[in-house]
């Protein structure tokens, strides 16, 4: 087994020297598996993440807001496409990945298992959920796998735009009528803690973190990313006069960071296990779209097959059909 050890050691040196791994390069099986799991989870999160926002497209309160929201959800579909393509370079097909999502084998970000109840949630999701996602994604622009890193560069540009749009909605509501301000505060109250949970459990409870760091897939710890997000977001909330729902939140001069209250990880693990408020609805919506669309996909495949066959060797029957 000596040569394998050699290859793995060389691989570690290669990524440690900040080189990018490309699809045809040799890579450890576990590296490949980890990436497929992570990139496909990320793609699924984009696709499932379309649902809570699509919930408000038909009720957007102005034509401008409707266009912005629709364009945003459309972008997320596009991100899903880039990411499925990046994962396919590792040898797993999109059909297989979608199948894993629909059978519950693959996960997606738990944040999308919370309901979007008011228009302010379109602000909070953009500001906090996209904000937390960006924190992670900016780091992933420097991830060791080339196709993933390049997809992330494109995605980050659009996501930061989404985050500003979300913040703009919150700002507008926070400066609006009493009812609008209450709506904004309520949305912040509901989305704050789940957003902090998006970074995952503390590093000592996150078994894959150390290996991912050694492979340079991951560049920062969950706790560090979470802290960066909090430090960045608290002043934004203060600026628009909203209160972060954490009585223990206070600036720590010595650390140069905000201290914050304990996260309720029992809630996180309950949602991951499938018992969040909307897990069933989200997966059902994806299954229904996939099942209802099966005949459309089959028709497109059948049509393409017929026509490539006709082009290759026009049969008398086909020519007749064309003439008809």
């Amino acid at each position, binding site marked *: 087994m000596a040569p394998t050890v050699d290859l793995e050691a060389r691989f570690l040196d290669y990524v440690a020297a900040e080189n990018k791994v490309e699809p045809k390069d040799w890579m450890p099986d576990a590296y490949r598996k980890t990436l497929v799991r992570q990139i496909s989870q990320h793609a699924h999160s984009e*696709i499932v993440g*379309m*649902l809570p926002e*699509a919930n408000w*497209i*038909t*009720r*957007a*309160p*102005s*034509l*401008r*807001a*409707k*266009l912005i929201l*629709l*364009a945003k*959800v*459309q972008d997320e*579909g*596009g991100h*899903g*496409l880039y990411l*499925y393509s990046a994962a396919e370079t590792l040898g797993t097909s999109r059909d297989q990945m979608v199948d894993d999502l629909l059978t519950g084998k693959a996960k997606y970000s738990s944040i999308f298992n919370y309901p979007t109840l008011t*228009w302010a949630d379109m602000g909070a999701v953009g500001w906090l959920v996209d904000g937390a996602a960006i924190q992670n994604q900016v780091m992933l622009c420097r991830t060791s796998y080339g196709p993933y890193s390049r997809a992330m560069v494109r995605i980050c540009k659009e996501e930061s735009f989404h985050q500003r749009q979300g913040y703009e909605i919150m700002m*507008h509501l926070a400066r*609006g*009528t009493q*009812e*609008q301000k209450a709506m904004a505060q309520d949305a912040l109250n509901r989305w704050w803690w789940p957003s902090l949970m998006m970074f995952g459990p503390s590093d000592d409870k996150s078994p894959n973190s150390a290996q991912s760091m050694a492979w340079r897939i991951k560049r920062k710890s969950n706790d560090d990313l979470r802290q960066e997000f909090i430090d960045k977001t608290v002043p934004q909330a203060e600026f628009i006069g909203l209160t972060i729902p954490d009585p223990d939140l206070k600036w720590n001069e010595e650390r140069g960071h905000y201290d914050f209250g304990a996260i309720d990880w029992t809630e996180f693990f309950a949602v991951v296990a499938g018992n969040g408020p909307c897990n069933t609805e989200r997966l059902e*919506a994806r299954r*229904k*779209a996939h099942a*209802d*669309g*099966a*005949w*459309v*996909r*089959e*028709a*497109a495949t*059948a*049509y393409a097959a*017929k026509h490539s066959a006709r082009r290759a060797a026009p049969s008398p029957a086909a020519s007749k*059909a064309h003439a*008809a």
Partner: protein
Amino acid sequence: MKWDICDPSVQYLLHLGDDALILGHRLSEWCGHGPVLEEDIALSNIALDLVGLARQYYQLAAERVGGGCTEDDLAYWRSDREFRNHVLVEQPNGDFADTMARQLFFDAFHYLQLEALQNSGDAQVAAIARKALKETTYHAEHSADWVVRLGDGTEESRRRMAAALERFLPFTAELFTPAEVDRVAFERGWGPDVASLKGPWDHLVLEVLQKATLERPEVPHKLLRGKSGIHSESLGFLLAEMQSLPRAYPDATW
């Protein structure tokens, strides 16, 4: 509504804008639920074009109404009896074949309408039409491609596509039956005689159906008067949903 929208040029702009808004709204209902990811993106794209087009017509209408009227006042504060869209575009999405049949019929009409509106005596309408014609050409290609694929795909897709054509063809007579709003627009040189678009439309649609190896169904026309504000029962629900927030918080701005 509190604004006076009786001016004939405002009525015509509302008619043009309402078709775009209502169909865009229907297409946006597919977002997140399409048969394949690429179609979620394509249908959202068309919806974006249409809602964007509606905004241009409404902004112009609002300017002509004056007194601080906005595009959102026109979209969110009119009742269904004040909407001037064709009954075709407000029909529920149904399955993907239904959506594509509705789209093929409207896109072909919309293309011909915009082509004529490029020469509108209303210079501002002509400018909007010139810009919208490009994107509408793409919409028409998209719906035609799907009707062909579904018609000439599998047995099931063919059956569904044929049923969808049969369901929506009866709504198309309204496109070519001049209502008051069309007659005034034609007399004043703002828009085409819609009856004259019927021949070219038949030609465009028939060409697609032939490629799809489908027959044009023999179905009677429905008597419809959406352009005069008499709609199907589904528009009330669509507007109730669309207009809910501004009406629940009338003092708020968004």
